């Protein structure tokens, strides 16, 4: 298939107290307007919109922005895996003539609005298998994402000897990168391994500092065909390939024959195969870091190391800037802000444009962006300059 490109990126401010002061929709519209303007496009040229699941409808985006020629509207229901998965669908749309310019918005008041920790309990239909969670998880106090995933982390520790200090190395790498990103909410708040180890247990083995931030903010990107990208204002970033996948069963997290097989286990080889490259060809990775162990697990399932070797892999600065595989140079969900994975795409685009100053990965040519959502849905996009 012909290539598609990301031609515009936009973000709002990221904040916690006192909150964005904007509605969830307005936050996303602000980021969208910026992405559209950066590309040098008019809103009326945006004829495809792919809203993040449960956070808005294409109709309201179009009506507010002035997208009067909307032809393609779709949402990929994969939670945090939606942004990278939507790159795949957007690329398909622009290369098959379904749309010329596709907008991918995301954003929420994750701090000042409803917290993730509350959403499942209040609305079980917000996740796949909601009735399963209601009848078989919630009565036992298994109510929120850090708890769901902590049992995977515990099992990984049991089978492979993964240690807390290794999860800590991930938290520390994200925090270190945030010191180079003025936008990061943890900028100016460095962390040591002692700080990490001393943080309270939230869902053992997850400590407080294993968990992503809860923040307000929005981000958006615009996708078009390589041909159209040539005429636009920005240096296009190519989508070499993108793929998504689901664990099995995707609606129930405890009864998987192989509990470490997630959506990414399917998506990664598919995307690398399409692009004709291997993980060894990648210069940096933006890994959906809702919790530290999910980073470790995704590094394994992408194939940066073998399953079970993620613990040693993340040690010794390997995933820090200057290391073999810099991960989340913006600080990620753990230390920049929780922008639902869209900020991971934005950061990857900036790395490939090459204008990131002191957090620039030298000579970055190819980057990977992953997404993780719900009970282990996965997505992966390979981007190149």
């Amino acid at each position, binding site marked *: 298939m012909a290539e598609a490109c990301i031609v515009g990126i936009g973000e709002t401010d990221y904040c916690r107290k006192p909150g964005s002061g904007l509605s969830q929709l307005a936050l996303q519209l602000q980021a969208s307007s910026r992405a559209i303007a950066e590309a040098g496009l008019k809103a009326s040229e945006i004829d495809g919109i792919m809203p993040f699941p449960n956070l808005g409808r294409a109709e309201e985006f179009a009506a507010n922005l002035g997208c009067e020629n909307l032809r393609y509207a779709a949402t990929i229901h994969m939670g945090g895996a939606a942004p990278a998965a939507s790159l795949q669908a957007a690329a398909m749309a622009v290369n098959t003539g379904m749309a010329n310019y596709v907008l991918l918005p995301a954003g929420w008041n994750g701090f000042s609005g409803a917290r993730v920790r509350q959403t499942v309990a209040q609305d079980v239909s917000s996740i796949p298998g909601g009735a399963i969670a209601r009848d078989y998880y919630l009565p036992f106090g298994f109510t929120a994402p850090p708890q769901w995933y902590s049992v995977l982390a515990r*099992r990984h520790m049991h089978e492979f000897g993964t240690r807390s200090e290794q999860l800590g190395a991930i938290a520390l790498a994200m925090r270190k990168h945030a010191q180079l990103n003025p936008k990061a909410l943890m900028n100016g708040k460095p962390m040591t391994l002692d700080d990490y180890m001393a943080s309270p247990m939230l869902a053992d083995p997850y400590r407080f500092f294993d968990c992503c931030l809860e923040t307000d903010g929005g981000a958006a990107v615009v996708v078009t065909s390589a041909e159209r990208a040539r005429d636009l204002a920005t240096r296009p970033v190519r989508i070499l390939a993108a793929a998504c996948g689901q664990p099995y069963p995707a609606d129930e997290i405890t009864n998987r024959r192989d509990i470490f097989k997630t959506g990414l286990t399917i998506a990664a080889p598919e995307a690398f195969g399409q692009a004709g490259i291997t993980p060894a060809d990648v210069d940096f990775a933006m890994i959906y870091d809702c919790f530290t162990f999910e980073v470790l697990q995704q590094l394994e399932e992408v194939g940066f190391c073998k399953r079970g070797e993620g613990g040693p892999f993340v040690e010794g600065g390997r995933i820090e800037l200057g290391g073999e595989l810099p991960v989340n140079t913006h600080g990620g969900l753990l230390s920049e802000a929780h922008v639902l994975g869209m900020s991971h795409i934005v950061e990857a685009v900036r790395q490939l444009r090459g204008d990131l100053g002191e957090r620039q990965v030298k000579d970055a040519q190819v980057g990977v962006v992953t997404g993780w959502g719900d009970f282990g849905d996965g997505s992966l996009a390979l981007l190149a300059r």
Partner: protein
Amino acid sequence: MSEYTRPLPVLEGHSADFYGFCKAGELRFQRCGGCQAWRHVPRELCAECGSWDWEWERSSGKGELFTFTVVGRALHPAFAEAAPYAVSVVEMEEGVRLLSRVADVSPEELEIGMRVEVDFEAVTDEISLPIFRRASG
């Protein structure tokens, strides 16, 4: 009994059957009439062989701890007083896994591989939750 405030299963469809058996003191899972595969959570047909034929068959009630977490800070108001509390995934002898808790073992003593057996806790007049205790002998 003071009013029970924690989330309860909704007694509809297969969950009504599953929890109905629990109330009667029986842990039962669906078992395929075609290929004899056990399954949990309840489903409409067998994902292994495609058969729609199944029965609620009684579990031995015995299993071992597959994984667990200890919730240090509850993220649901109804569990605020309970923290720290453990949530366990038990792998039953039949092969299926059940999310539950081990009632008589403190969080610090939990260990993957620990042998446990089912018991039931009547939390309301209608609902008994399947919980586990350290296996005897």
